[in-house]
């Protein structure tokens, strides 16, 4: 059994490779030249003793260096994961790239599983209960969401392939201890609040957030490799936006530097107000507000679209599933952010 992992040098791909250490793996990475490939091979050598092959999903035949006869499982983790990604890039990498993985999968005679790592937000503008089923296109908040939905459809349209679509939550820490290794919209937003650069809260405080650790998510992915095919939603137990902010500020307010600045908790605002703020911030010369807001704004509209993700299939397929305390994870991540990133050292 040989597992091909695309995007193996990415945040999640690298951790999945580590979790599958000891199995027969092929690690596919994107690189511009031999030097970059050598660097990535060196880094991945710490993770798994496995061949590292160059694969650029934008190429016509990206898997030219992979023998399809030996591949039995594909974990497609490669993607552009940015809420502000352009439509063109999202289409070329996330959609057309997935189509190329599909083409390669058709050539893998012994294929047992083609797993696409997707996102819970492939649900787009839906509100309310979201099932572990295919989604219709009812619109999307950003091109990233659209592209992940389109990638799901690209694979789910082919019943002859053993496809699993695993919709992932927002990863905010390595594990329950809260170590933060990669920033995303969550961390950028927390930095704005901690710094006093933002006092508006985009979203309905009652909107559930699906926040998880990388450890929980990797456990889910590896468990689902052995589960029946189909769609799974990896949702560890939600926390509301309001509770997440309250939790974050409770942590911030333990910090003497933050406490001295007496920064207020943010005021919930409507979508138009947040758009106005983001638009106005684009013209604020060179300060930190504009780039930080730019990373948050393309996602902010989701925070007005409350969703409750069902996890019946996930829990049935993954006996090890345990609900996670998302508020505790927020607290741990914010503690780590203050200690290692936010706090300005004093002389």
């Amino acid at each position: 059994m040989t597992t091909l992992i695309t995007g193996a040098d990415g945040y999640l791909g690298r951790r999945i490779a580590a979790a599958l250490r000891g199995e027969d793996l092929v690690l596919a990475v994107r690189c511009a030249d031999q030097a970059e490939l050598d660097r990535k091979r060196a880094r991945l050598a710490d993770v798994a003793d496995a061949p590292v092959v160059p694969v650029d999903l934008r190429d016509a035949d990206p898997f030219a260096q992979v023998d399809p006869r030996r591949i039995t499982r594909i974990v497609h983790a490669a993607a552009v994961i940015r809420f502000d990604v352009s439509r063109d890039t999202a289409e070329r990498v996330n959609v057309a790239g997935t189509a190329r993985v599909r083409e390669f999968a058709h050539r893998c005679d012994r294929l047992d599983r083609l797993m696409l790592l997707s996102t819970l937000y492939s649900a787009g503008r839906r509100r309310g209960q979201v099932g572990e089923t295919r989604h219709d296109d009812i619109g999307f908040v950003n091109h990233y969401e659209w592209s992940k939905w389109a990638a799901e459809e690209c694979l789910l349209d082919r019943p002859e392939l053993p496809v699993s679509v695993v919709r992932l939550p927002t990863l905010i820490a390595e594990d329950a201890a809260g170590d933060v290794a990669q920033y995303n919209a969550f961390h950028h937003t927390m930095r704005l609040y901690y710094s006093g650069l933002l006092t508006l809260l985009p979203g309905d405080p009652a909107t559930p957030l699906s926040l998880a650790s990388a450890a929980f998510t990797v456990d889910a992915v590896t468990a689902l490799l052995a589960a029946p095919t189909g769609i799974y939603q990896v949702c560890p137990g939600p926390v509301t936006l309001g509770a997440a902010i309250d939790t974050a500020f409770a942590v911030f307010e333990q910090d003497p530097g933050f406490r001295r600045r007496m920064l207020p908790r943010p005021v919930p605002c409507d979508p138009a107000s947040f758009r106005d703020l983001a638009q106005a911030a684009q013209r604020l010369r060179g300060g930190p507000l504009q780039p930080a807001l730019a990373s948050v704004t393309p996602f902010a509209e989701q925070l007005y679209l409350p969703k409750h993700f069902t996890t019946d299939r996930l829990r049935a397929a993954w006996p090890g599933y345990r609900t996670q305390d998302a508020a505790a994870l927020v607290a741990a991540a914010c503690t780590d952010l203050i200690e290692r990133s936010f706090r300005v050292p004093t002389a």
Partner: protein
Amino acid sequence: MDGLYIGSFAHALGARRRHLRESAAAGLLQSAPEDLEAAGFRWHHVCEPGGTAYELAHAAVAEIAAGGGLTDIDAIVYATCLPGETGAGPVRDVKDLMDFPAGRLQAEFGLSRAIVVGLHQQACTGAIGALRLAGALLTTEPAWRRVLCVTADRFPEGAWYEQAYNLISDGAAACVVGRDPDVCRLLTVHQITNGGLGRAGDDETVGTYFAYTHRLVREAAARAGLTPADLDWVVTQNTHEKAWQILARLLDVDHARIWAPTLADVGHVISADAFVNLSALLGSGQARPGQRIALPMAGFGLNWQCAVLEVAR
């Protein structure tokens, strides 16, 4: 603040009216001119070389005097952001560092029974702080009738005419708080200070503006027994026009009731532009007796202050 009125509104602006693109070309702005124009700014007023803040204050008070409004003044409350420039070189006699513009006004206008009070820790909110002090003085001094409130600032030559992304004008404003019926009743004044943000940069100032101004207006209205939705007018400082589109929604106030018609012509006159806008509202004939007006201001320090008035006539 029962039984207190406010009137005799006057203001003076720097003599030279200049387009912001001219100031940008002269190196007096930090932002690109097109960015300030996108915020709604166009023109601002600067003093001629050698002109002073005191001259602006004098001009505003002279307007009140010309209208017969300087009778029975028991106190002068003088607010400024920039209380004095220190000269170059070593100082032997610290008297050289002192300046007494309120005292000079007292002498100049013959307000012999007035005492003077200076206020310079409230930045752009000082004019509202002057109203609060005036009310407090009249409350504790039953024999007093009227307090002259003045605010004046002039930026040093060569300084940027931009603060916290706002185009700045040199200017002054003055009014009288007293016991006799006047243009408006002074219902309340509310202040919030966060000294922990005393050295806040421009982005922090902008970032905290919304939560604090939201809280300020709600709390000020509540002190007058109102909600923000009960306010007939919110007369604001001249700041980015998007700011009050956002705040109007947060406060559930119809944006048509946000009043800052001098944004493009005057810019942000430190502590005076809300009074410039208030004069424009009262002069427009749109404010009716019984209507309630909020004057929220934000300033460095960081300070936020809001007065609530009721149109009396």
